[in-house]
């Protein structure tokens, strides 16, 4: 392989577990170093995504900022991947979908136990919450979905390895099945 591919990653409404799983590919990271260059990512602290070959998104879409980031990734990345259960289904954060946003915020900031000076935060610095948490494919087109909570390091490595080598992407049964 010649020049390294550019990769950007982001965690939206997720727990960073998928990013941890990415790091969990251990010494194989060294194999990847020569082939991958990170753009915007929690690993680099670059704030704005530039033109990339691959974007990896962890987490669902829960607020206005998530929407903006996701759209920026879609504009800049040739291939965009939903990594993990939350990106694919909304996951744990989407459990709030059975309540109204008002119920959630009132419970957290007005009526919950041990609350001092109850008020719903309204600082313009804070991104506004969407009334529901959505999987990312409901906002932008997604090219690949990597299931798992998180997808195992093996799955992530296999995906990157096959993508880099230009092979059709295929997984061993255990890598994408959980039954």
């Amino acid at each position, binding site marked *: 392989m010649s020049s390294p591919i550019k990769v950007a990653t982001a965690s939206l409404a997720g727990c960073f577990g998928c990013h941890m799983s990415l790091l969990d590919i251990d010494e194989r990271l060294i194999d990847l170093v020569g082939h991958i260059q990170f753009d915007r990512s929690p690993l680099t602290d670059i704030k704005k995504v530039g033109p990339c070959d691959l974007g990896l998104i962890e987490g669902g879409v829960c607020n*206005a900022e998530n*929407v*903006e980031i996701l*759209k920026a990734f*879609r*504009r800049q990345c040739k291939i965009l991947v939903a990594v993990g259960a939350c990106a694919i289904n909304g996951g744990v954060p989407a459990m709030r979908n059975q309540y*109204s*946003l*008002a119920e959630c*915020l009132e419970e957290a900031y007005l009526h919950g136990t041990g609350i001092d000076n109850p008020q*719903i*935060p*309204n600082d*313009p610095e804070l*991104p*506004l*919450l*969407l*009334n*529901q948490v*959505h999987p990312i494919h*409901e*906002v*932008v*087109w997604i090219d690949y979905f990597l299931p798992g909570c998180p997808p195992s390091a093996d799955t992530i490595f296999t995906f990157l390895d096959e993508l880099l080598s230009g092979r059709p992407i295929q997984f061993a049964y255990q890598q994408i099945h959980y039954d």
Partner: protein
Amino acid sequence: MIADDAPQSTTHMTSTGDGSAHELLQRLIELQQTYHHIPWTEIERLSRQLSLSQSHIVGVIEFYSFLHTTHQGEYEIFISDNITDQMQGSRLLAELLAKGLGIEIGTTRADKRVSLNYTSCIGMGDQGPAALINGYTLTALTTERINQIIQRVDASTPLDQWPRSLFEVSSKTRRKDIILNSEYIPGAAIAAGLKNGPTSLLNQLEQSGLRGCGGAGFSTASKWRFCAAADAEKRFVVCNADEGEPGTFKDRYLLQAHTDRLIEGMTLCAAVIGSSTGFIYLRGEYRYLLQPLNEILEQRRKAGLLGQSILGQANFNFDIKIHLGAGAYICGEESALIESLEGKRGIPRSRPPFPVTQGYCGFPTVVNNVETFCNAAMIAQRGPEWFRQVGTPASPGTKLLSISGDCERPGIYEFPFGTSIRDILHACGAQQTLAVQIGGAAGRMIPATEFNRTIAFEDISTGGSFMIFNQNRELLRAIENFTHFFRHESCGFCTPCRVGSSLLAKQLSKVMVGHATAKDLDEMSILGSLMQKTSHCGLGQTAANPILDGLGKFPSLFQSRLRATSFEPAFDLDASLEEARLLTGRDDPDAHLEGGGV
């Protein structure tokens, strides 16, 4: 017919009373009727009596639409929500009813007087809009009838004092052919069967070419023969009267107007395969038929046509029990039906083994549709040549069709197999027809260019549902209705169907609200074909049919609603911030999102 039994609320039931776990579903149906929910104390009691875990019992309750752990109203009302009901104005009437009762659809009123919900097609397509109240069928609803209902609920009038006319189910036939025109002679088929012996009868059935009328078209003679040949100490005869396919109601007609033929056919089958016990699995939506059916069973026992020593034959004993369903479409699938007969959740079994070798309680079981048993009785009475005089070589005889939707004369029609759709449309007075949905939600949507095709197993096979849409109809609404139907009725056992049916419904709604692009249509096709290939049973394998047929035969329905961009969000981004804006009082630029895709 008038549902005379409507008033008798709770006592008359079907359970075997033998204290076995198979009784569970029937016991739960009784409890639901008595208490309008299943109280926890009763779950504990059943758990002890039947030696079942409480979670198993709750699992069964939650599987069936008509059973609830939460309190429903003293009047439990379900509005039939098939597309044909909607075309007759059911949604508006439901809203009127909700408003009059001071209740939201899908809820129980605070005083527990009444609950109101939608339900899947209840088999009244020819006399809708229709509804169920405490299990009994209300037909031909109008604003005037809705007002009558509201008044009586408000006055707490017991159901037996409601006007009979509200419960009237007409069983008019619009066209008769050899089956319905032939006179049924009580006991003649059984007598012929007993006189000539099982082999001769099976040969007759084989020569007649009778095929299963539920839609799959398996040879009836082969089914009975396999069952008879299976090595076992007991065998069972089961009539599938769980007529749940949206738009079909011909079994309702047969159960109501030709009960004797059905029972004769089942008794004949028992004689052939050597069975002493039969079941009629009657869908919960037809519970108004329970008492008349039981009365006819009793009459036949008295006449020596059922029970001990049938027709004086000392060693021929056969009796029939009626088992009620509780609102689950999947129980029309024969192995799910057997699970339900055994009192469990109606989840289809893996096949093989097929029920003919391992069915009810593991014993060989014949499961046939109502119409199949009726036809078998008439063939035994009249002979195979009589049956073959109409129809096609591969599909002999006739088919009962339940015709509904946009036509002048909806109702029951008997047509020879091989009749063209055009001729059927002409016979029922359909005009300017855009499409016909044949075989129900799981069937096929046929465009006008294919109206020369015929009703036959070798062309378009059907269990009998025939829904007509004229050029003023928005076909996408029908496709949406069927897709939502499958999402609701998926039993949840296998992932392709459970998840796929939800995804399809979501993607279709993206099309309906105008957020979809060409890529979404490709996704729907891929998902649909995945469901066809990988689902556990026929439900999942056909759940994508409405969308796939729509995409294949009516692509413009979808394309006209697409965005030209490459991809669009499935929901309105800015609108979904509205609640947060209200809560925070913000309206700054960052409190808004631009719409549109990337």
